């Protein structure tokens, strides 16, 4: 032990000089003091000296022991022992070099909790994805159940069957990953329906942001694709001659898209306009076919038409003025039966209804996306869902009220989306800004030279009231300190003047921020 031992004589000298009394007086005082303490102790009392500590007696029980040399058992008699319990003042002063150390819980539970929370947050979007995917799945199965009825009856049933296949393909991709689905749809769209969609989208696009654009592109294919099929698939059943098809399809779609924006009012006109050339062509073809093969095609058509009639009858078609008007306005043809015409007009009503739905959906999406410039991935999902709802409605043939319904329906998820998908931003208040802004240290209130045992935490405690804020001292002296744990003795540390709100001990966020910084700097 290289500890320097101070005898009572030295203490007497020191006290004498300090209290400016004679050494003799100091010596006598010390003797009296010790005598008094002893006296108190011997009287069985606890002797307390202010800001120094307490002396008290402790009884040590008699115990057995062995003489180390002889191996003899000896009994150590019980005795009193003076114990000294240092006062907190003395304790703290003595322990100052280690004052900054705190007990550390090694298996701390709060840290783990934080980790789990973080993981939960990260998984959250994924969970929402899967939830929505299952939702879409359910909808699709509903669609399938509905569309299963017409399939069995007519050649036209190919159309629902095909759409179903598509729907299935989408469904297959969905559970795995919604992003993939979006991509696949986009690809299909690019391949199949680019021209038409462009036209449709053109109406909406200029107002939209990029994200909206995406959404619409995703929504469009879902709707326009089946529509396309209808046009292509309905045609063959009507015209019976493959050569005419390509010529027919093109003008039709164009006409349809030209008319689209003012859908509601022009429906009868559209149908009529479209029908006349088509019918002509059709009739010509039919005439030709009759010329070549007098009976066959007509006969072939008959059951088909009947079937369609049945199908249409099964489905409750709301009594539509336009429809009835159309049927009545139809030119009377001597070559074909009435059924044929009604069938064709029905097919055209189908197309018009689908277009109505598409435009209604487009309008709904437009109104939905317009007010909110902020968008996110999840809206896409919902939009697709809505689209399929429309498709299902289209199979059950509820033509008119659907568009408004869609518009209303699209608005509902908007709130929900905003609610669960927009990342939670911490309220940006002035304190947060204070934390985020880079700290510039211009004013210094003091400077300290590092001594043995001096720590940044101790300095921080002295100047800022808490050792947590040592990080700011470190930040201000970064160029001098390479390692905050080992600062060379003699280093001049400047104590920066800090914004009092940054080191507000009553604000837990200040402490939290300092601890975060601590974790960053101490690695």
């Amino acid at each position, binding site marked *: 032990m290289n500890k320097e*031992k*101070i005898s009572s004589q030295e203490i007497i000298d020191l006290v004498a000089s300090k209290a400016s009394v004679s050494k003799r007086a100091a010596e006598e005082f010390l003797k009296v003091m010790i005598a008094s303490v002893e006296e108190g*102790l011997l009287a069985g009392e606890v002797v307390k*000296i202010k800001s120094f500590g307490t002396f008290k*007696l402790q009884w040590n029980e008699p115990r057995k022991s062995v003489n180390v040399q002889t191996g003899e058992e000896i009994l150590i008699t019980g005795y009193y022992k003076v114990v000294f319990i240092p006062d907190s003042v003395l304790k703290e002063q003595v322990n100052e070099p280690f004052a900054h*150390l705190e007990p550390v819980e090694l298996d701390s539970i709060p840290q783990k909790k934080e980790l789990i929370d973080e993981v939960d947050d990260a998984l959250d979007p994924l969970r929402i994805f899967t939830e929505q995917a299952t939702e879409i799945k359910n909808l699709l199965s509903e669609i399938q159940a509905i569309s299963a009825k017409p399939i069995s009856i007519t050649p036209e049933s190919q159309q629902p069957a095909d759409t179903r296949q598509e729907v299935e393909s989408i469904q297959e991709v969905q559970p795995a990953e919604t992003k993939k689905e979006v991509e696949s749809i986009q690809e299909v769209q690019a391949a199949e329906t680019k021209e038409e969609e462009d036209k449709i989208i053109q109406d909406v696009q200029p107002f939209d942001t990029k994200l909206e654009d995406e959404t619409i592109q995703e929504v469009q294919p879902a709707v326009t694709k089946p529509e396309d099929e209808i046009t292509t698939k309905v045609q063959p059943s009507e015209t019976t001659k493959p050569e005419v098809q390509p010529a027919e399809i093109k003008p039709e779609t164009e006409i349809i898209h030209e008319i689209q924006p003012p859908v509601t009012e022009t429906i009868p006109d559209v149908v009529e306009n479209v029908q006349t050339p088509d019918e002509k062509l059709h009739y010509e073809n039919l005439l030709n076919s009759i010329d070549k093969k007098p009976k066959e095609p007509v006969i072939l058509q008959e059951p088909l038409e009947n079937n369609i009639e049945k199908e249409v009858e099964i489905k409750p078609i709301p009594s539509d003025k336009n429809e009835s008007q159309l049927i009545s306005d139809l030119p009377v043809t001597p070559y074909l039966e009435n059924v044929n015409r009604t069938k064709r007009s029905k097919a055209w009503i189908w197309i018009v209804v689908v277009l109505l739905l598409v435009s209604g959906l487009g309008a709904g999406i437009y109104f939905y996306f317009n007010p909110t410039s902020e968008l996110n991935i999840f809206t896409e999902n919902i939009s697709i869902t809505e689209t399929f709802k429309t498709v299902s409605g289209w199979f059950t043939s509820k033509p008119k009220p659907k568009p408004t319904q869609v518009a209303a329906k699209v608005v509902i998820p908007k709130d929900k989306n905003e609610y669960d998908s927009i990342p939670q931003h911490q309220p940006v208040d002035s304190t947060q800004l204070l934390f985020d802004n880079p700290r510039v240290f211009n004013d210094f209130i003091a400077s300290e030279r590092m001594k043995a045992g001096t720590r940044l935490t101790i300095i921080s405690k002295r100047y800022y009231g808490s050792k947590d804020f040592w990080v700011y001292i470190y930040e201000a002296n970064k160029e001098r300190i390479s390692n905050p744990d080992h600062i060379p003795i003699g280093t001049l540390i400047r104590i920066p003047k800090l914004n009092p709100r940054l080191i507000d001990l009553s604000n837990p966020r200040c402490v939290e921020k300092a601890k975060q910084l601590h974790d960053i700097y101490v690695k």
Partner: protein
Amino acid sequence: MNNKELIASMANKMKAPKAVVAVLLETIVSTCTELLVEDKTIGFQSFGTFEVRKKEERLSVHPSTQIRTLIPPKLVVNFKQSNILKDKLKDMPHHE
């Protein structure tokens, strides 16, 4: 016997005013504290020695929660009674 009583008894013995005794006592205490902070051992003859000891860091396990805690090292003041005082105490009967 608390601080006041101690001062009173000392003043009585020294035949000096309590205020003077209090000041002197404070001086002694502050002197001792300073010396101890400087990591010095103080020996009062016929009474005992005051010494600063370092308690090493240790791992403590909470018996019921099993939480292991690392207790940091610390410096404590230790008093060891002198043999003279011990002999004086030997004569004391054990009351319990």
